[in-house]
């Protein structure tokens, strides 16, 4: 994503939402529309970092019988060329078996893993096991992460850094935080890895603002909402707007 000097667009979908087939179609659609990476959420019964939109989507997916194995099948069947990051909470991965999950995710075509409730350093042995299989273990950095911890958290990180743009749970907000550029600079001072921004980015204008300062832009709740309310047609419109916004932002980058 650096060669073109533009930010990468990483749409997020909850696996199995609004239905397994529609979700698979949405992944393909997102790739065709110009997504650079895709994030696929494994539904968990107690998503404590997620706002109402993603909570509803994960519950709906579980109600339709989505399982961890089902998510991996879905990723495999989507046959995507762009890299896929699996995003979830720790417990479904523990229940599946960490090594078994990493191997199965790679076999299904995933290249990264993001565990919302496994912060850097919280369980070094488990982190080593999760990172040993060759999936990039994506680390999250928050506005509340102190500089001392930031240095420790990015050590040994792979893939990219996921910068949580604001305090709070996932979900669309009115505006991007005014200090976004400073936050990105703070992370970049600590690591050469690309920095992607997520949490609260839903509109084309917000995506453009994020794309001007970061290497990647993650859009989750807005896309999940579009899929839930207007199906693939709504998702396609939103994705087209987001792609245009991220690409036009590149022209304004220094």
């Amino acid at each position: 994503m650096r060669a073109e000097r533009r930010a990468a667009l990483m749409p997020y979908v909850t696996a199995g939402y609004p239905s397994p087939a529609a979700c698979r179609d949405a992944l393909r659609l997102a790739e065709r529309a110009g997504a650079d990476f895709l994030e696929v959420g494994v539904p968990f019964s107690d998503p404590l970092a997620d706002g109402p939109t993603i909570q509803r989507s994960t519950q709906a997916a579980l109600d339709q019988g989505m399982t961890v194995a089902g998510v991996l099948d879905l990723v495999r069947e989507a046959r995507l060329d762009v890299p896929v990051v699996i995003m979830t909470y720790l417990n479904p991965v523990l229940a599946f078996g960490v090594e078994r999950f990493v191997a199965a995710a790679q076999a299904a075509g995933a290249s990264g893993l993001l565990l919302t409730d496994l912060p850097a350093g919280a369980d070094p042995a488990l982190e080593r096991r999760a990172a040993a299989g060759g999936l990039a273990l994506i680390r999250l950095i928050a506005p509340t992460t102190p500089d001392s911890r930031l240095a420790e958290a990015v050590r040994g990180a792979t893939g990219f850094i996921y910068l949580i743009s604001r305090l709070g749970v996932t979900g669309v907000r009115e505006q991007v935080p005014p200090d976004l550029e400073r936050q990105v600079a703070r992370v970049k001072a600590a690591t050469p890895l690309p920095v992607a921004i997520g949490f609260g980015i839903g509109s084309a204008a917000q995506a453009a603002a994020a794309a001007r300062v970061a290497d990647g832009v993650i859009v989750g709740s807005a896309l999940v909402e579009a899929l839930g309310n207007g199906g693939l047609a709504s998702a396609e419109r939103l994705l087209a707007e987001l792609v245009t916004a991220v690409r036009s932002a590149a022209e304004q980058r220094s």
Partner: protein
Amino acid sequence: MRRAEAGAVTVTTDLGRFGPYGGRYVPETLMAALDELARVYEAATADPAFAAELEALLKDYVGRPTPLSDVPRLSAQVGAGVRVVLKREDLNHTGAHKINNTLGQALLARRMGKRRIIAETGAGQHGVATATVCARFGLDCVVYMGEEDMRRQRLNVYRMELMGARVVPVSSGTRTLKDATNEALRDWVTNVTTTHYIIGSVVGPDPFPRIVRDFQAVIGREAREQVLQRFGRLPRTVVACVGGGSNALGIFTAFLGDREVELVGVEAAGEGLEGRHAASLARGRPGVFHGSLSYLLQDEDGQVQPAHSVSAGLDYPGVGPEHAYLKDAGRVLYEAVTDRQALDAFAGLSRLEGILPALESAHAVAWVLAHPGRWSAGDVVLINLSGRGDKDVALVADLTGVRT
């Protein structure tokens, strides 16, 4: 680690582990706040002024020490010459042990300069205890409570509101304690720089399990001294109910080193262990939930299973990580009793002794009543009566077909 050693039963390392259990499995956003809380707690425990203030409040505001009550008519049903005694946490201000913890944590919040307090509640006892200390210290208070629990515990909702707290109904998931905890954590992730989360049990990410245990340990320190004074010997058995497990660790901790004292934690078997229940230790397996690794009711796929108990305070699919450790170490025996047994014990203790226990505490009483002949004459059986049953009267009347 099969046999727990005296004085070394509870191992807390920098990572907040009890053996393999515990830890800090939380969103990155909360890590700094947990570090701060651990630091402030450490400083507070080293400060004699902190202990002095807490002790004065426990004495003059809460009413400690709580009495130890003989229950001769109940004892007679358990065995000739057996002495069952109750540690009367129900006689604390607000009617349960929960205030021991909320007072301590309110003092910590003040040290951190945080003026907004959030809490989760199941039966409402922790919510009431939190609302109470917030009123006492002039702190803003928001309590998350499942809609289902609000229906079961209407009186407690009103008590919280009378003391100035805002009670936020939680309609996601099972609408009980687990979802109220999710919602409180979501609030904390959003407002972490201004807000302290007073978690109500020995659950959650480190340092909460050890902080809550330490604030509740006053129960066992008092009870051990009271039993020794009255009987000149230690109890044969100490019994407490276990949901998250704070009243149990509160009374067990002082006895962990007394290897001749049997410790029994009683979980909620609900409709029976083959049906819907809340017995995480009996029927769960280790998993990560609400920030720590412990026994958890979950399906094959790692999805958390809804718990069931007639008592809202035990209706939780997880359990404190130190209990997981004590189970594996064999130091505490974990058992379970059904809704039916608890309701019978509720009625029994009321009729025999004039004490209405909380439905949670009734589980501990029920386990003792279910084991007549287990003890010999002269044995002292200590039950932690963690709360009073006033809050449950309407529910029990409903369940037993009495019209109120």
